[in-house]
């Protein structure tokens, strides 16, 4: 038995390291869990990208759930996410609100003209001040906000077809169940 002890110790360590590797492949180790989940979204009042004289506030968007998608023309992974939003956006059943983050309006418009816009409306946060209230620290990030203005789901990094199918769509379905 005592001869087996080192071997058992080794196997325990190997199992621990194996678990560590498995665990890191299961989730994005750089994603920070948001403390804002299931809390009211912060109040905001931001200009529209295409009509900067008009603003959109949190109150304006209440009543219907929407997906707030943080993007920027400088953001490389937004280009990865974009085709997914274009393809899946119409099937989600919620409004897509684009949140242009720390971007020059001209660059953002050029980017959307080039790639196409999946958004019903695009709001612009060039200074990035409101984004701090949302706990945004990069792009892309996506917030699912329900009809009462509560953040129900957040995804950090690009939405992939897998994430849409396994996380986003079930989250939207859950919203629909409670408000028929």
């Amino acid at each position: 038995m005592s001869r087996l002890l080192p071997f058992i110790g080794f196997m325990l360590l190997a199992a621990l390291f194996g678990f560590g590797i498995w665990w890191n492949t299961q989730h994005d180790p750089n994603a920070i869990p948001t403390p804002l989940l299931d809390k009211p979204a912060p109040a905001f009042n931001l200009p529209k990208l295409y009509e900067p004289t008009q603003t959109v506030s949190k109150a304006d968007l209440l009543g219907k759930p929407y997906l707030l998608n943080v993007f920027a023309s400088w953001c490389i992974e937004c280009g990865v996410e974009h085709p997914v939003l274009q393809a899946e956006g119409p099937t989600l059943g919620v409004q897509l609100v684009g949140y242009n983050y720390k971007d020059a309006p001209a660059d953002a418009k050029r980017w959307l003209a080039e790639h196409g816009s999946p958004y019903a409306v695009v709001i612009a946060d060039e200074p990035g001040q409101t984004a701090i209230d949302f706990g945004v620290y990069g792009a892309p990030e996506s917030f699912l906000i329900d009809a009462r203005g509560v953040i129900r789901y957040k995804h950090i990094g690009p939405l992939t077809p897998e994430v849409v199918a396994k996380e986003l769509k079930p989250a939207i379905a859950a919203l629909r169940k409670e408000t028929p």
Partner: protein
Amino acid sequence: MRLSPCGSGFSRDVLGMLRQKASRLKPLPQGSLLRLLLVILFAFTGTLHAQAIEPMPFANHAQELRFQHLTHELRCPMCQNETLADSNAPIARDLRNQIFKMMQQGKTDDEIKQYLVARYSKFVLYDPPLTRGTWLLWFGPLLILLGGAGVVLVAIRKRGRMPANGSSGPRPSIDNGDDW
């Protein structure tokens, strides 16, 4: 993982690590090449640190020191192995400006930390508070140390008892494969 404009974060980290290692190797042979290299390294880290922070109109030197101290205690959510003080990420710059603004408003360090934790979770604290979620982080190493001490104690006791058994003849029992 998101590609991010982390600036020269990586190289700065490597330099930081070397600098830490170097400070541990204090007693160097006089006039060695290594010392020369270290001098060059130190010169580099200095300039790199200076780059990360743009000058801010502090009210006085004490406030500047307080700002430096606070930003060194907070972690950049984007470039996650850097402090807010060191990081070149856009979000780090925004958060530094926010901290500066809050300091001008007379907010205390705790209030500023609370503000950031409410948005970016406890992740941003380099010195995590002792809570139910972090006790393993704080006391885990102590538990492992105690466990190791226990194993050593048991092994010593076992060995101490062996000769006292008074077994006659050759005593192969002492070498029972325990000496790993």
